[in-house]
């Protein structure tokens, strides 16, 4: 029923089609392009649609652009999902504790949240990567470091409205431990509005990862779209396709995440509106 409503909007359908393609690219990358995508595959700077073995051509060092695109989808998706999951996890725990404990704990946690929102997130990510050194998990942590504040605020606001409700009161009456109440009764109910934010967080994470890689701060052992775009910059005049193609992949991925996310939120909103 709600699926049918979801697929009534052409935007949402487009979003899911794009996400499906992206997922398929990420999953099939090691099968279709089993070799190292960073290895030399042919003559350098081959233009797209010249050679059927290398349909999108090669870069300055002769690496296969299509293979890079597929393996890059893997990185983008993995980092986007992992960073979003980490931000939502940290954010909802912080928000739940702040909202449920109240008082000084709430005050301190919210000032910390303010502080994280005051510092430009990308600078914070830069600082962490530059101090610890670039690797996939550091990049994920660096992105989550600035992205958890949104979920924290929303979770806190939700918890504040939930904690006075009947089932929380009755949990108190039967003598449940406050921490148990917070995480077993309150958090699960506070989660939906936080999750509604997840598409925006995933999209932002994908874009941040790309920007970090573009600046040469991504994991050096992996292909990333941001890295490919940066790589193409050196030959921007003679071979603009090297920067343009991965960028298009990036735009479509982010767009797909937005469209799908918006479709889901709207169809659930419509369902609640009817109920």
């Amino acid at each position, binding site marked *: 029923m709600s699926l049918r409503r979801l697929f009534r909007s052409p935007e949402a359908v487009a979003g899911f089609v794009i996400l499906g393609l992206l997922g398929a690219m990420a999953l099939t990358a090691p099968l279709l392009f089993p070799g190292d995508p960073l290895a030399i595959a042919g003559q350098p700077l081959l233009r797209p649609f010249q050679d059927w073995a290398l349909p999108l051509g090669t870069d300055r060092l002769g690496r296969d652009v299509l293979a890079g695109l597929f393996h890059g989808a893997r990185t983008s998706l993995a980092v986007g999902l992992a960073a979003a999951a980490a931000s939502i996890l940290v954010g909802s725990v912080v928000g739940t504790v702040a909202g449920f404990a109240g008082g000084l704990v709430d005050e301190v946690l919210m000032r910390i949240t303010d502080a994280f929102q005051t*510092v430009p997130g990308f600078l914070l990510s830069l600082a962490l990567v*530059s101090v610890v050194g670039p690797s996939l998990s550091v990049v994920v942590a660096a992105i989550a470091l600035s992205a958890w504040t949104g979920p924290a605020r929303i979770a806190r606001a939700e918890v504040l409205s939930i904690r006075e409700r009947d089932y929380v009161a009755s949990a108190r009456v039967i003598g449940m431990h406050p921490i148990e109440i917070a995480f077993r009764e309150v958090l699960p109910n506070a989660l939906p509005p936080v999750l509604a934010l997840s598409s925006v967080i995933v999209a932002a994470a994908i874009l941040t990862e790309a920007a970090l890689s573009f600046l040469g701060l991504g994991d050096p052992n992996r292909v990333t779209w941001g890295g490919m775009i940066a790589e193409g910059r050196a030959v921007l005049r003679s071979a603009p396709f090297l920067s343009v193609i991965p960028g298009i992949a990036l735009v479509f991925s982010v767009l797909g995440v937005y469209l799908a996310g918006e479709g889901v939120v709207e169809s659930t909103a419509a369902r609640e509106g009817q109920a």
Partner: protein
Amino acid sequence: MNRALRLLRRRLIGSIPVLLIVIVGSFLLLEAAPGDAVDAYVASVGGDAGMIEALRQSWGLDASPMTRLAAYLWALLHLDLGHSVAFSRPVLDVVLERLPNTLLLMGAATALSFALGTALGILAGARPGSARDRLLSIGSLALYAVPGFWLALVLTIVFSVELRWLPLSGMETIASGKTGFARALDIARHMVLPVTSLGLIYLALYLRMMRAGMAEVWRMDFTLAARARGIGRRRIVLRHVARNALLPLVTMLGLQSAQMLGGSVVIESVFSVPGLGRLAQEAVGSRDTPLLIGIILVSAVLVIVINLLVDIAYAALDPRVGANEANA
């Protein structure tokens, strides 16, 4: 006016703990980084082992972490942000030198995105669900998905490489000897692409917020009441619906400033604009942690100041702000 001043004072006091937390965080990052301030200083100025020891002692770096933090705070209080390895100069000097360029870039990008974004948002939100609305919504969503640095490259390919209409990079033509208006025009030409690349994503954001806000205001009774009173559609759209929907955008203007500062890193790097963002990238490139932390601190202060200004503007636009305290 009294209302705004009272609000300003409260916000100012409220931002002190936030700034303290940022400072403590910066201190921890500095501690985590390999090498300390003396290493940084000696690396740029030079010195032997004995001098290093002496410096460590006189800077209090061999003391306990708490004492070191106190010393750090004390130094910050005297506007001493440490020494930059890469530039062999005090961090604050380097940062302040680059700040105006970033402010110009951000100011222009904010003005462009806010003005165009709200205007297009009003066009879309004037008739929710119309073809125009749908088109603008999808267009803005697509724009919202475009990474600024990639847009910067594409715009460069089109306007600088192919069409040769605009300069490729830099802040102004080097050694052109231009002054006054000619120089301003030269800088403006250089800023077109960076400003567009930095601002376009926020244009999409403001458009979408305005449109969504207006759709919400349309559902409120007073828009129907205005119709019932015979107020013209144009006036309802502009003076009632858009006017009310504008308020959350003003708040967003403050929240967005931190994000835009982050965005300026890549944009300034692409266009070689000598601003704060490019400085951050240079700091990372040369492993100049004190400089990077200095940039972060100055950015945080900048964000706090911008948010204070935005709060004042908001109070001027929304008569309900601070109404409760006024009676108390």
